[in-house]
């Protein structure tokens, strides 16, 4: 756990986020716990730092560049124009110049130049090329775990250079020489052996859901079901496992159940694939990415469902929407009348359009709502059939379910959204300082709508965002309970028992 640190101050009446002067190495001390040998080995990586790791790391970098057009063009093309320098929430929150996207990229680019370019081989000083050594590795470990892979920088880059890809590559290289991050690698191990990030076994999952059914029936008087492993159900719902126990996630899960209940569509969870999250993306591991995705395809085939729907989880939706078809497709065994996969927001949106849900907006009159666009949904996926649907659909769900909605400042929403500060595999207590500081820009934008519109509820559609805000909100003197699941708002508005 990092030493005590000061939470950045929020300003009054600020329209745009202030860009700080930089403070060199102010976050150099931030390092996540390294993974234990058994965690690395279970994912196919060496347990500990290998002997000739410098050489192996350079070789691995070459393999990655040969296999990725993105990485190759990104490393070659940056002109250091500076457009990205004030766009990263971690830079804005920490003032550490190595958290400027271009500087973070250069931690890797300097090695690429040294070993794989003419200018770096013969004029290293001139172009800022460096030898691969321990100090470089230390810097990588520190600063590539201060990137949430949110892609905000790439929106503003004149060429579209995406630091997320570079940070994934750096983590892949570190894993390949035996330096893994505990949080991601331990979780991936649990996911591959037990079926979810929590390590929640089948029996515990079933018990949890039975308790949930009782609770919802007590609250509403209606027997809403939360089924597991029901063969022949129409829909397989894949949710982040945080939805089974964490607040406010579980209220979202309750909401999904209410939507299915009123729509009268049969659905099921899977105990084999009880996890939407796929942290393999965070560590840039293609093998693991595919393996984890395969579990979900296998579960869908085994259960004989017609559709797969994904719950509220940002990076999971990126993996599902953008990668599943590539990795484990084609999904030709599913009903071709629906996109595969579908987001729960798309599903609920379609039901609302068809008038299949009875929503009472007044049920949410105590909420004054704003919406946090999650980075992976906003900048790495889509909902609906038009570009930008990922911004329109969730807001449509809110305004169909509630009367009071206020967007945050335009430069902080939609594709300009600021990351919550905990994405990309950073959602761990040993990185609390970078998480809290990185939340500053979002908190600043939130403060504005709180001051101007008395907003008391920030809705999100990502398990990581929800968990992160549960920590960040109190740090910035907001009530923890402000963070709300989108399907909690929808679920609260659904008038159960009014449709048959």
């Amino acid at each position, binding site marked *: 756990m990092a030493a005590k640190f000061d939470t950045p101050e929020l300003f009054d009446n600020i329209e745009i986020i202030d860009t700080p002067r930089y403070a060199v190495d102010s976050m150099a001390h931030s390092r996540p716990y390294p993974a234990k040998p058994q965690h690395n080995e279970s994912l196919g990586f060496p347990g500990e730092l290998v002997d000739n790791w410098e050489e192996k790391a350079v070789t691995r970098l070459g393999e990655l560049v040969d296999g990725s057009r993105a990485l190759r063009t990104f490393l070659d093309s940056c002109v250091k124009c500076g457009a*990205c320098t004030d766009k990263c929430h971690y830079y804005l929150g920490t003032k550490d*110049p190595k958290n400027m996207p271009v500087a973070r990229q250069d931690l890797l680019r300097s090695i690429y130049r040294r070993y794989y370019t003419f200018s770096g081989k013969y004029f290293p000083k001139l172009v800022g090329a460096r030898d691969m050594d321990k100090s470089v590795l230390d810097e990588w470990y520190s600063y590539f775990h201060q990137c949430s892979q949110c892609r905000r920088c790439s929106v503003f880059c004149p*060429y579209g250079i995406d630091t997320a890809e570079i940070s994934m590559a750096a983590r892949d290289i570190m894993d390949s020489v035996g330096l893994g991050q505990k949080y991601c690698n331990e979780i991936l191990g649990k996911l591959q052996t037990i079926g979810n990030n929590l390590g929640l076994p089948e029996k515990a999952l079933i018990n949890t859901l039975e308790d949930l059914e009782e609770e919802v029936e007590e609250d509403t008087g209606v027997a809403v079901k939360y089924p597991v492993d029901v063969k022949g159900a129409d829909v397989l719902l894949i949710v982040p496992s945080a939805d089974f126990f964490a607040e406010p996630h579980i209220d979202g899960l309750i909401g999904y159940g209410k939507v299915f209940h009123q729509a009268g569509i049969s659905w099921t969870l899977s105990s084999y694939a009880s996890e939407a999250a796929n942290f393999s993306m965070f560590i840039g591991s293609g093998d693991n990415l595919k393996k984890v995705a395969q579990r979900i395809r296998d579960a869908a085939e085994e259960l004989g469902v017609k559709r797969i729907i994904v719950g509220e989880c940002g990076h999971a939706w990126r993996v599902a929407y953008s990668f599943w078809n*590539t990795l484990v497709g084609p999904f030709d065994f599913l009903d071709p009348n629906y*996109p595969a996969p579908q987001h729960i927001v798309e599903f609920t949106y379609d039901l609302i359009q068809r008038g299949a849900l009875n929503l009472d907006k007044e049920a949410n009159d105590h909420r004054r709502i704003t919406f946090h666009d999650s980075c992976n949904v906003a900048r790495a996926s889509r909902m609906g059939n038009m570009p930008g649907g990922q911004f329109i659909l969730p807001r449509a769900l809110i305004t169909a379910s509630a009367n009071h909605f206020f967007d945050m400042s335009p430069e902080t929403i939609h594709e300009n959204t600021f990351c919550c500060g905990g994405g990309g595999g950073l959602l761990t207590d040993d990185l609390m300082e970078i998480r809290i500081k990185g939340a500053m820009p979002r908190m600043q934008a939130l403060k504005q709508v709180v001051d101007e519109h008395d907003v008391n509820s920030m809705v999100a559609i990502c398990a990581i965002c929800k968990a992160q805000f549960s920590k960040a909100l109190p740090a910035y003197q907001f009530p923890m309970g402000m963070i709300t699941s989108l399907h909690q708002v929808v679920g609260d508005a659904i008038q159960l028992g009014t449709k048959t």
Partner: protein
Amino acid sequence: MTLSVVYAILFYAATLLLVVGVVRKIIIYARTPAPLKIPVTPAPTTKAGVVWRMTKEITVFQSLFKASKWTWLFGWTFHVALALVLFRHLRYFQEPVWTVVALMQPFGQYAGFAMLAGLFGLWARRFLVDRVRYISSLSDHLMLALLVAIGLSGLAIKYLAHTDIVALKTWMLGLMYFDLQPLPSDIFVLLHLGLVIVLMVIFPISKLLHVPGLFFMPTRNQVDNPREVRHTAGWTAK
């Protein structure tokens, strides 16, 4: 005549390096697979949409405009001016001169000044904006110095110390038709040509690779249709 021969050899060598170097890079970019769909969204859902997105990036630097108005102003001014200047220079490579090139002549000359203004603006940022100063390496400064020197020496030929432009053009045409002619040995001519040779040589081994690289970035040139069309390449095709 010695000078003429030396410059001729250098020009041929530089042209060869530029063409081979850039073509080689383009082939490498084209052959390197893009295993996953990674367009930065919202992204176009059709190929025509992608063409439109890229056109906006290439012609008006849309994303840079969004990012930083000053950088956009200087960067866009420099690039457009450079394009005009290069176009104007076509007159030294053709006889007779195309009408459109002749018509552009006055604009091309003003563009020389605009190009320098843009370059000085970009360079000033490397000193005045602390973040940009931090990320600038020696090569970033040298690249600007080189372009500024090319611009200044070019303008010097026009406005400061006239050269025998007809003789210069004769030399250049001679170069193209392998019929070597004497090169006017004015200092600014030699400087201008020498620096252009340097620029041509470093193009394929420097950040100037952003020119071909820009067209190959999957974040911008991919269609947002991963659910509709199954994409595989590289390791995802195995």
